[in-house]
C-alpha cells in the first residue's frame, strides 16, 4: 500500500467521524461583538477618520440591548439604577424582593449579561468536574507560584490539608483549595479561593440570603445560594451556579471566597482561622 492509498483510506475513515451538533456560534458571537469595536472606521475606506456613526451606533445598540436585558430581569422600578454590594472584586446584586436592610449599597449604572442557565433543579453536581480543572498542583508548590501568602484554615480542627489545589493565571495567580468529604470522596465540603485584584469582576445575581458580617474586623458578605455567578474580564464571560453558601471578604489586593455548607458562624470562624502553611 503506497502513501496515496493510505491517505485515501484515512480520508475515507475520517469522513465518517460523528461530531456533536455544531452549536449556533454565530448568534452568541454577534451579541458579543460590540465589545470589540476597535477596528471600526479603519477599513477599506482608509480615510483615517474614525467612523463615529458606527461606534455610536454600536454603543447605542449595546446600551439598548443591556437595558432590554435588565428590564427582563428586574422589576421596572429598579430598572434605571441597579444596586449592588461590592467586596473586593466581587459584586453582589441582591434579589429585588429580598430585604437587604442594613446593608449599604452602591448605586451605579451597571452592565451585565442575563443569566442563560437552566433551572436549578435540573443542574447536576459540579463535583465530577474536579478532575477536569486545569492547574492542579501540590500544596507545597503553591506558595512558590502565588505572589501572596497561602493561608490554610485551622478551624475546624479536623479539616486537615486541602485534597486538591489549583493555581490558575487569571491576569494574576488565583489559587483554589478544595476539601472533599472523606466519607464521600466525590463530595466537596469546602473550597477557598484566593483571587488577586486584576481585570476580573465577579457578579453574583440574587442570592436568596444575603447578610453583612465581619472577618477579622473587615467587612464581609455572606450569601446563600443557589444563584448564578458571572465572572468576566472584559472580553470573556463565564457563568456558573453556586449551590453552597459563600463568605466573601477582602484583604488588600486579595479577595477571599470561602464556599461551604457550614453555617455563617462556622464559616466566619473558619475564615478567621486562616494561618500560613507550616
Amino acid at each position, binding site marked *: 500500500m503506497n502513501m496515496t492509498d493510505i491517505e485515501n483510506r484515512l480520508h475515507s475513515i475520517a469522513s465518517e467521524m460523528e461530531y456533536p451538533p455544531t452549536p449556533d456560534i454565530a448568534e452568541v458571537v454577534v451579541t458579543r461583538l460590540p465589545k470589540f469595536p476597535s477596528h471600526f472606521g479603519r477599513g477599506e475606506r482608509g480615510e483615517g477618520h474614525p467612523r463615529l456613526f*458606527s461606534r455610536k451606533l454600536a454603543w447605542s445598540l449595546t446600551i439598548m440591548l443591556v437595558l432590554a436585558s435588565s428590564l427582563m430581569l428586574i422589576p421596572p422600578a429598579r430598572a434605571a439604577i441597579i444596586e449592588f454590594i461590592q467586596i473586593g472584586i466581587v459584586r453582589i446584586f441582591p434579589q429585588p424582593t429580598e430585604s437587604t436592610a442594613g446593608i449599604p449599597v452602591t448605586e451605579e449604572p451597571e452592565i451585565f449579561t442575563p443569566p442563560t442557565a437552566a433551572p436549578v433543579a435540573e443542574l447536576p453536581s459540579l463535583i465530577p468536574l474536579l478532575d477536569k*480543572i486545569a492547574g492542579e498542583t501540590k500544596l507545597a508548590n503553591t506558595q512558590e507560584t502565588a505572589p501572596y501568602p497561602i493561608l490554610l484554615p485551622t478551624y475546624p480542627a479536623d479539616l486537615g490539608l486541602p485534597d486538591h489545589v489549583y493555581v490558575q493565571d487569571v491576569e494574576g495567580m488565583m489559587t483554589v483549595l478544595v476539601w472533599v468529604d472523606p466519607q464521600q470522596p466525590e463530595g466537596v465540603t469546602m473550597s477557598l479561593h484566593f483571587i488577586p485584584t486584576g481585570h476580573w469582576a465577579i457578579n453574583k445575581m440574587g442570592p436568596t440570603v444575603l447578610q453583612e458580617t465581619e472577618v477579622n474586623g473587615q467587612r464581609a458578605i455572606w450569601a446563600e445560594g443557589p444563584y448564578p455567578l458571572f465572572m468576566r474580564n472584559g472580553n470573556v464571560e463565564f457563568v456558573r451556579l453556586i449551590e453552597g453558601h459563600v463568605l466573601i471578604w477582602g484583604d488588600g489586593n486579595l479577595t477571599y471566597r470561602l464556599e461551604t455548607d457550614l453555617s455563617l458562624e462556622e464559616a466566619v470562624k473558619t475564615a478567621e482561622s486562616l494561618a500560613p502553611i507550616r
Partner: protein
Amino acid sequence: MDESTLIRRSVNGDTAAWESLVRLHQQAVFRFAYLILGDPDDAEDVAQESFLRAWKYLERFDAARPFRPWLLSITSNLASNWRRSAGRYISALTRAFRYEPTPDSIEEKSAKAMQANELWEAVKRMKKADQQVVYLRYFLDLSVAETADVLQIAEGTVKSRMSRALRKLQNIIREDFPALIEGREI
C-alpha cells in the same frame, strides 16, 4: 454575497456580514476545536473565542489569502492553550450549566462511525503537532497548502510532517487498533 465582500464589510464594522461569515465557517472551527480538545463544551467556547479574536484582528487578515485557514490557525492556537488557561478552569466549573446527557451511546454509533472514532483515538496518541496535521488533512479535508496556512509552516514541512505522522500512525494502529485494518493494510 461572496466571502471577500463579507470580509470587506466586516472590516468596516458590518456585524451582519460577520454573522454570515461565522455561519459559513462555524462548523469547521467547532469541529477542529472538538478534535483537539475532545469536549464539545470546550470546543464551543474555543470556537466562540476564535471568531471574537478573528473579528478583533480582522484588519490584519490578508484578503489575498483564503479565510478559513486563517480562522483555523486562530482556533489551533486557542485550543492548544485552552487546557492550561483560566478559561479552561472556569469553563469546567461552568459545565454544569449546560450539561446535557449524550443521547448516543457508543453502541448506537454505526460501525463506520466507530471506526472513525477509533482512528481519532489512535491519532490522539501522537504528538500534538502531528495530530493537527492529521486533523486538518484527513478529518477536515484541507489541502496541503491550506494546512500549511493554518499551521503557519511551509508546504514542504507539511508534507514531511505528514509522512512522519503517517508512519507513526500506522504503527499505533497495528499495535493498538487492529480492527481499523479490517484485512486492509494501513
